C-alpha cells in the first residue's frame, strides 16, 4: 500500500538539475540553506547560474523577481518559515503582483521539522500562499510527486509555491501528479479521507484499518492545493457523504477549512478536520510531535468513526 520512505528534498534537488539541463536560462537562488534544501546539487553543476545570497530571504525573493521579469525561469529555495513567512510581502508584491515567473520551493514545512522547534515549524504557509492571487500552491505527499510537481511548475509562466517536508516520507503515488487534480489513491464509498503532504500516508493507514472492519474509505491526495480540484471533492461528497481532512498545517486556515468552505457552498456533508490546533509547535522527535498535536492515526480513526456514526453507517 505504501512503499519505502524517500526524501522529498533529494527528489527536488535531482529534478532541479534536470530542469537546469533542459533550460539553460534557468537560475536558482538560495539563502544559506543549500545543503538542507538540496539546491547545492544544482549549484555544483551550474555554479554560474546559482546564487547563494546568504541570510537575506526577502531580498532573495525580490532578486528572483527581477531575474524573472528579465525573462528567466527562477527557482528560489529556503525553509518554509523564511519563504512564506520572512519574505511574505516580497512574494506578494514583487512576485505575485508582478506575475513574475518565480518558483518558490520551500523545504521544512510543518511540525516534522522536529528539534528546531516552534519558531521554525511553519504551520501557516499553505494559507498565506493560497491567499495570493495568481499563485499556484502544491504540497507533495512523496518523492515521485515532488519530481512531477517541479516539472509541472516549469510548464507555465507565473508564480508557484511548493511545500516540502524535511522527513523522508513513504512513497504513496506513482508520480502521476497533475496540476489541479486530486489523486485518488484508494477507492471507497463509505467515507472520504482528504489529505495533503505527510498526512497522505497516514490517511492510507487509516483507510487500511477501516477496511479491516469492513469500512471502505476513499483516499484523495490534494497535493494540488491551488488550483484546487473541486470536482473531485464534490464527487466524493456526493458519493461517500462524509469527509475527514488530514493536514500537517494549522487546522484554522488549511486544507480542512478549504474543504469545509467548498462543500458547504456546493454540497454540504459532514466534515471533520484533523490538523494542528491553534498553537505553535515545539521541539521534539518529528513523529512524536505529530501524535502530540493530534495528528495520530488513532485520533484520525476516532474522527472517522464519529463521521460514520453520524451517517448511521455504524452504531
Amino acid at each position, binding site marked *: 500500500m505504501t512503499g519505502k520512505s524517500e526524501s522529498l528534498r533529494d527528489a527536488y534537488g535531482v529534478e532541479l538539475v534536470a530542469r537546469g539541463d533542459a533550460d539553460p536560462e534557468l537560475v536558482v537562488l538560495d539563502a*544559506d540553506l543549500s545543503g*538542507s534544501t538540496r539546491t547545492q546539487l544544482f549549484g555544483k553543476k551550474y555554479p554560474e547560474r546559482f546564487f547563494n545570497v546568504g*541570510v537575506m530571504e526577502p531580498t532573495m525573493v525580490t532578486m528572483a523577481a527581477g531575474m524573472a521579469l528579465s525573462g528567466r525561469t527562477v527557482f528560489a529555495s529556503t525553509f518554509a518559515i523564511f519563504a512564506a513567512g520572512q519574505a511574505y510581502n516580497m512574494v506578494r508584491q514583487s512576485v505575485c503582483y508582478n506575475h513574475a515567473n518565480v518558483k518558490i520551493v520551500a523545504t521544512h514545512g510543518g511540525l516534522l521539522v522536529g528539534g*528546531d522547534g516552534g519558531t521554525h515549524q511553519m504551520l501557516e504557509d499553505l494559507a498565506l500562499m493560497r491567499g495570493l492571487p495568481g499563485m499556484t500552491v502544491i504540497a507533495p505527499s512523496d518523492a515521485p510527486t515532488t519530481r512531477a510537481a517541479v516539472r509541472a511548475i516549469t510548464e507555465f509562466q507565473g508564480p508557484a509555491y511548493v511545500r516540502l517536508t524535511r522527513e523522508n516520507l513513504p512513497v504513496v503515488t506513482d508520480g502521476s501528479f497533475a496540476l489541479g487534480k486530486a489523486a485518488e489513491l484508494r477507492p471507497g464509498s463509505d467515507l472520504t479521507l482528504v489529505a495533503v503532504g505527510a498526512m497522505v500516508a497516514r490517511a492510507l493507514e487509516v483507510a487500511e484499518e477501516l477496511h479491516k472492519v469492513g469500512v471502505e474509505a476513499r483516499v484523495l491526495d490534494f497535493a494540488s492545493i491551488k488550483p484546487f480540484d473541486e470536482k473531485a471533492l464534490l464527487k466524493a461528497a456526493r458519493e461517500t457523504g462524509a469527509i475527514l481532512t488530514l493536514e500537517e498545517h494549522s487546522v484554522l486556515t488549511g486544507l480542512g477549512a478549504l474543504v469545509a468552505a467548498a462543500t458547504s457552498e456546493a454540497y454540504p456533508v459532514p466534515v471533520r478536520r484533523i490538523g494542528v490546533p491553534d498553537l505553535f509547535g*515545539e521541539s*521534539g522527535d518529528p513523529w512524536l510531535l505529530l501524535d502530540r498535536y493530534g495528528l495520530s492515526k488513532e485520533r484520525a480513526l476516532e474522527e472517522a468513526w464519529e463521521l460514520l456514526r453520524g451517517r448511521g453507517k455504524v452504531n
Partner: protein
Amino acid sequence: MSAVAATADLDALRTTAREIRKDIIRMTYAAGGGHPGGSLSVTDLVTALVFHELRLDPAHPDAPDRDRLVLSKGHAAPALYSALARRGFLPVEELLTLRKLGSRLQGHVDRNKLPVIEASTGCLGQGIGMAVGMALDQRLRKGAARVYAILGDGECQAGPTWEALMAGGHYKLDNLTVILDRNQYETDGDTEALMGIEPIAEKFRAFRYETLDIDGHDFPAILGALDTARSTKGRPTAIVARTVKGKGVSFMERTHVYHGKPPTKEEAEKALAELGGGSLTG
C-alpha cells in the same frame, strides 16, 4: 588590560568556559541535532557576560533592574542554556533534555518554556530589534538595566539587523551593547564567499556605534571591551569579537560542517577528550 580585567578571576572564567564547551558537546550529541559550531564560538563571550558583566541573580531571576541578554543568534542556545545552568538558573542535569519533546530547552532559546530567557529568537534578524526596544524602555522608565545583544555574522546579511542597528544609533542608546560573534562561517560556508559583510567594523561605525574590534576568545580583551561599553555615553557600543567557529574542538574549528550537525559518538568522545575529559552524560 583594564582595571576590571585585572581584578577578575580570569582562570575561573576560562575553567567555566571549558565546562560550557563540554556541555555543548554533550547536549548536541544527546539531542542528535543542534548547532555546535556557533555555540562553541560564542562560549567565551557568553561566559564573560553571564559570569562577570551582567547583573543577574538566580534567586531573583525577574528582578526589574537585571541586565538583559538577548541571544539574537538563537541557534547558539546550548551555550546560553549551559551558562545559565552553571550560574544557577536551572539544574545542570536538565541540559541533556535539549530538543526533546516536553523539554524547557527548545532548539532555539524560548522564554515561553524557560522564562529566564529574555526574548525568544530563532529566525535571525529579530533579537537585535527586541534589544533596541528593551533599551528604549529602560531609557523611558529611567531604569538602570543594560541591554546586550549577541549577533551572528551570517545574521549581519539580514536586512532587519541593520534596520534595528540604525534605530539603536539614531536613538543614541548608550545602554545598548551589541556583540558580534565574528566566526567567519555561516551554514553553507565562509560569509565572505557567500555574501561579504566586511568591512564590518566600519559599518557599525557608520551606523553611529562606538566600535571595538577584539579577539573574542581573550578574556582580558572581552572584559575590557565590556568595560568601555559601560562607560561610553551618548551612543551604543558594538564589539566585533573575532572568534573561531567550533572553538576548542580541533575538527570543528574553522569550518561550516558542524554549523548544524551534531557530533557522532566517536566525535563527541574525541571532543570531550580535547576539552579536558569527562563523560558523555556529564
